[in-house]
């Protein structure tokens, strides 16, 4: 199983808001680099992490906090064959968000489903 040719299930668990701390941005950097390794990858968004996928982020100097809006990078994930994006339902609803508020297509799942998915993973990188 540990041979270099083996394919593992990697889940990136995103828990933090996109700005305020650098976790979300640097998590996305790992996802992009990791895509070159041909593993089975999924991303899950929970707690304030659901804000990472919010449409219409305005963060630049003229319209916001003077930071680069990196949310468009999530749209590039499908070019890397990363299409399993999960949003935890209660986190989404608690923040007044709906499926149509997200910048990319996602699957809305409840915490029991997320828990079951996590149990199937070989590696969970929690940011």
């Amino acid at each position, binding site marked *: 199983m*540990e041979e270099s040719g083996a394919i593992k299930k990697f889940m990136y668990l995103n828990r933090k808001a996109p700005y305020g701390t650098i976790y979300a941005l*640097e998590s996305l950097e790992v996802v992009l*680099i*990791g895509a070159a*390794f041909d*593993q089975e990858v999924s991303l899950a968004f929970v707690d304030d992490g659901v804000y990472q996928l919010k449409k219409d982020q305005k963060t630049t100097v003229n319209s916001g906090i003077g930071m680069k809006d990196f949310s468009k990078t999530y749209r590039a994930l499908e070019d890397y064959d990363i299409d399993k994006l999960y949003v935890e339902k209660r986190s989404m609803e608690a923040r007044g968000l709906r499926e149509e508020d997200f910048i990319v297509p996602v699957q809305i799942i409840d915490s029991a489903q997320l828990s079951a998915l996590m149990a199937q993973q070989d*590696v969970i*990188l*929690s*940011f």
Partner: protein
Amino acid sequence: MKFGILVNEGPYQHQASDSAYHFTKAALEKGHEIFRVFFYHDGVNNGTRLTVPPQDDRNVINRWSELAKQYNLDLVVCIAAAQRRGILDENEAKRQGKDAYNLADGFRISGLGQLIEAGIQSDRLIVFGD
């Protein structure tokens, strides 16, 4: 068992590096293998040799360096995260035209691929963070 370790927080500010150190040391003493310790986010600050903690406190950086020496550990600091935060080795300082470097003994700077590889090669990847 073969472990990979990910340290996502800086020294002193956060317990994560202490916990990672104690876990790593205990695992090695029990005869387990540590494939690699990877430092990311503010975790890269565990790799600066310019840290000067008070004398009656633990020295988080030296502790990692000594463990690396004793067990031939692979301590890897993420280059992208390190450059943002001013952690440089001699080569990188030269390349970036900086007048100093600060990477501590026993650490090396490399890319995020080393983290993914640790995930692939280890039986368990343990994340220490916030």
